[in-house]
């Protein structure tokens, strides 16, 4: 007689995973849905007025920004990643980690420094006037940094590392056999790159570009400071200036259409092609030596982003800090600001990666339409500007708090006040909504490293789904998990609008302090907190650069 084991629903209804994914996705999607719901709310004449006057320039500016920044980060990110992983030229090993440095730079900080450097009163124009004998702005032409072109330049300089990191990881993970096969099939190094390495790395590159463009659309600090009219500045103005949250949310909803298109593009470019490497054997990558002038050119190309995106702005910040004086800069409540920023970033980073792992793994185990939809919905939060996420969270949280307070008051007679609104919990929730796509993209892409047969091997050797995740998937994708934590960490450190609005009372971070000072045109005073954001952001960037260099599959780490 056969014994009948527990009647598992087996592959037909993966209930625990399904429930986990749907609950997580619903939580992350809630603010987005609240915002999207505003599209249906009639808002009277103000929306019509906006559509007739500024909406066109919002859309036009946003499109120009996206096209130019997208092209810029693709060229910079893929070009540098290929050069430093596949070629050998002077300082190439050193550049491998130096290229990560601009990640530590928030776009608005770079905007402040170049404004300080290049505007009329800055050292560059001052020196030109002194040398050429010009006396006023009428005597010469100089590019205006506070412009759309300036915003594009600033964003490319700080956003290309998204493409660089993911493309570099993809190049490293490509089996050298595939590249060598293409070389022996008569492809030169250049064609091996364009016909084999690049197509194989395409999912990673597209993910990187998509991330950079989402950041572009979400940027508030730079466009606000440069007075470029985009959706985010419009939202900020209609909400805080005109006191019209519904209209602000409607602008946000239009912006979400842009990002939804972006996500669709990225998903489409990946297609159904889940490519797994055909060999499990890894070897050291042979690097193509670039002697003479070609090496010099490669060095110049790879050095430029490091100089523009990090060295020059960091130098400017350091100069400001010394100008103001060290004790004035780092005294007072500086330590508290730094602690606040660090805590928020770490908690949010770990939470985002944990949620991303659950979502990506559930989707891989059970690629069913409902789970897929839930995961997509969860990543859409990245589309929503921080300020709009704040509305989307504040509205339901305040309602929840009020009902809790009423209930408690009914029992005890004393009101506990608002429990969740204006707490770190609410802020971390906002970061999770906003940055889940960062970790989800990375985790999902890296799970591709675990081939179906590795998974099946773990299962037939006695691992359940959770134990296989712990014993096989997580150790194999360890390096990518670190990358994912770090990407979120740095983003949270720099995040501005949501933090400005949702921070607990009297709770300041380095970012909010920098913004306040720069808005008051106290650029030099903003130097120290901005420099601190950069330095704190730098530590994990350096750790990451060592970790990803070490943690190649198949090598003890």
């Amino acid at each position, binding site marked *: *007689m*056969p*014994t*009948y*084991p527990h*009647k*598992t*629903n*087996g*592959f*037909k209804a993966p209930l625990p995973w399904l429930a986990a994914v749907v609950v997580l996705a619903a939580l992350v999607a809630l603010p987005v849905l609240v915002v999207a719901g505003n599209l249906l709310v009639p808002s009277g004449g103000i929306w019509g007025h906006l559509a007739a006057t500024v909406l066109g320039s919002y859309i036009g500016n946003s499109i120009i920004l996206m096209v130019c920044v997208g092209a810029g980060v693709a060229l910079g990110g893929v070009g540098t990643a290929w050069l430093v992983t596949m070629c050998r030229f002077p300082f190439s090993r050193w550049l491998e980690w130096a290229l990560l440095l601009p990640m530590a730079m928030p776009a608005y900080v770079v905007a402040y420094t170049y404004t300080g450097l290049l505007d009329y009163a800055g050292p560059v124009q001052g020196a030109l006037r002194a040398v050429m004998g010009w006396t006023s702005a009428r005597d010469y032409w100089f590019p205006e940094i506070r412009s759309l072109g300036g915003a594009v330049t600033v964003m490319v300089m700080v956003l290309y590392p998204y493409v660089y990191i993911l493309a570099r990881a993809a190049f490293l993970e490509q089996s050298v056999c595939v590249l060598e096969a293409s070389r022996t099939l008569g492809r030169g190094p250049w064609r091996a790159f364009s016909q084999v390495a690049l197509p194989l790395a395409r999912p990673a590159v597209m993910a990187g570009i998509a991330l950079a463009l989402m950041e572009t659309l979400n940027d508030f600090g730079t466009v606000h400071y440069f007075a470029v009219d985009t959706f985010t500045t419009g939202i900020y103005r209609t909400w805080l200036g005109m006191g019209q949250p519904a209209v602000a949310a409607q602008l946000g909803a239009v912006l979400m259409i842009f990002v939804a298109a972006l996500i669709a593009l990225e998903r489409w470019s990946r297609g159904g092609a889940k490519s797994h490497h055909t*060999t*499990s*054997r*890894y*070897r050291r990558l042979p690097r193509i030596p670039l002697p003479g002038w070609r090496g010099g050119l490669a060095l110049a190309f790879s050095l430029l982003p490091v100089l523009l995106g990090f060295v020059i702005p960091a130098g400017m910040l350091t100069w400001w800090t010394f100008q103001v004086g060290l004790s004035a800069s780092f005294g007072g409540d500086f330590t508290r600001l730094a602690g606040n920023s660090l805590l928020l970033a770490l908690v949010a980073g770990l939470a985002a990666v944990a949620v991303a792992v659950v979502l990506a793994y559930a989707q891989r185990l059970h690629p069913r339409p409902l789970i897929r939809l839930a995961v997509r919905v969860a990543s859409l939060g990245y589309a929503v500007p921080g300020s709009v996420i704040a509305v989307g969270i504040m509205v339901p949280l305040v309602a929840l708090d009020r009902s809790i307070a009423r209930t408690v008051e009914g029992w005890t007679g004393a009101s506990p006040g608002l429990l969740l609104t204006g707490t770190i919990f609410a802020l971390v929730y906002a970061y999770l909504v906003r940055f889940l796509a960062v970790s989800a993209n990375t985790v999902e892409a890296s799970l591709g490293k675990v*081939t179906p*047969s*590795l998974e*099946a*091997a*773990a*299962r*037939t*050797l*006695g*691992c*359940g789904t959770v*134990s*296989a995740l712990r*014993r*096989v998937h997580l*150790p*194999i994708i*360890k390096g990518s998990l670190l990358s994912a934590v770090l990407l979120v960490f740095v983003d949270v450190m720099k995040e501005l609008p949501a933090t400005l609005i949702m921070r607990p009372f009297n709770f300041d971070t380095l970012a909010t302090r920098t913004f306040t000072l720069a808005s008051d045109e106290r650029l030099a005073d903003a130097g120290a907190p901005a420099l601190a954001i950069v330095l704190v952001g730098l530590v994990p960037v350096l750790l990451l650069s060592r970790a990803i260099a070490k943690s190649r*599959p*198949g*090598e*003890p780490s």
Partner: protein
Amino acid sequence: MISTTGLVMSNITHHFGRTRVVDDVSLSIGPGELLCLLGPSGCGKTTTLRIAAGLESPSAGTVVLNSQLVSGDGVHLPPERRHVGFLFQDYALFPHLDVLGNVEFGIHTLSGAERKTRALEMLDQVGMKDYAQAWPHQLSGGQQQRVALARALAPNPGLMLLDEPFSGLDKRLRDQVRDETLHVLKRNRVSTLMVTHDPEEAMFMADRVAVMRQGRIVQMDQPEALYNRPADPFVASFFGEVNVFDAPVTNGMANTPLGRFAVGVGAAKAQVLIRPEGIGIADADGPEAVVLAARLLGRVSLIHLRVEHPSLPPAHLHARLSSRALPAEGERLRLSIDHSQVFIFPAT
């Protein structure tokens, strides 16, 4: 259908979307028996294997493993609870664990010392004990395959499942690893279901072979029975090159350039298949043929022949002779036919 044998699959059907990849497959494997699923790619053999492992849940049918119902009738025991060993085409060694760690992976419920003893014992059986501390990427393909075998056998599985386990190896290494694998499997007396597209490999490894085509088992028998008594032209031609004649039938006899062969009643046409080794050189009578080319292939020689017939189109055929004396090109020979190597199938 319930028995105490290793594996019983009954009336298994499986769909991917609308495609029926496995169609009413039934098979059973006795204790210690090695059954081979043989067929061209896309015939459903790997899916059948994955269903046995629990990696797929069949659309219909039941799987009974060591007297326990594991699939069907609303039951699906997940792979981790079936105690099966799976050997993958790409070996699937965990890249983050060394060789010992890989073999210990499936026996982590044992205590540390026991685990290590068992793992080393398995590595010893496959001749890889000296590589316990090596990393998978440092091993050759053959070594990876041996480690994968040790890893799959370490938990003492009730059933071993082998998915084209030798296809990644070059010919000489393949023969050696195949031989070793067979001995390790037989020494451990484990029931085994193996998938291959290589008939020679199937005959080398298997106690019994099931030939699959388009999701169905066409014939299941011992290798020599498949070779000597194929059920249809597909099976006959799968085990090696054959000379094929589409022959008209008159008075119950199929007419070929090599003579007339008896067919069952009723057919108007027949397919006559003659293995090259069933054609020999006769002394006097027999059909006449012209030598087009003759080549020595090692143990046998291959003769290309042309046979003419007054009322049928001329035929080109191959004969394999064990003699080393090669006939000259253009020479006229008389042929003899070994009727045990002739298979006649009435065409419908």
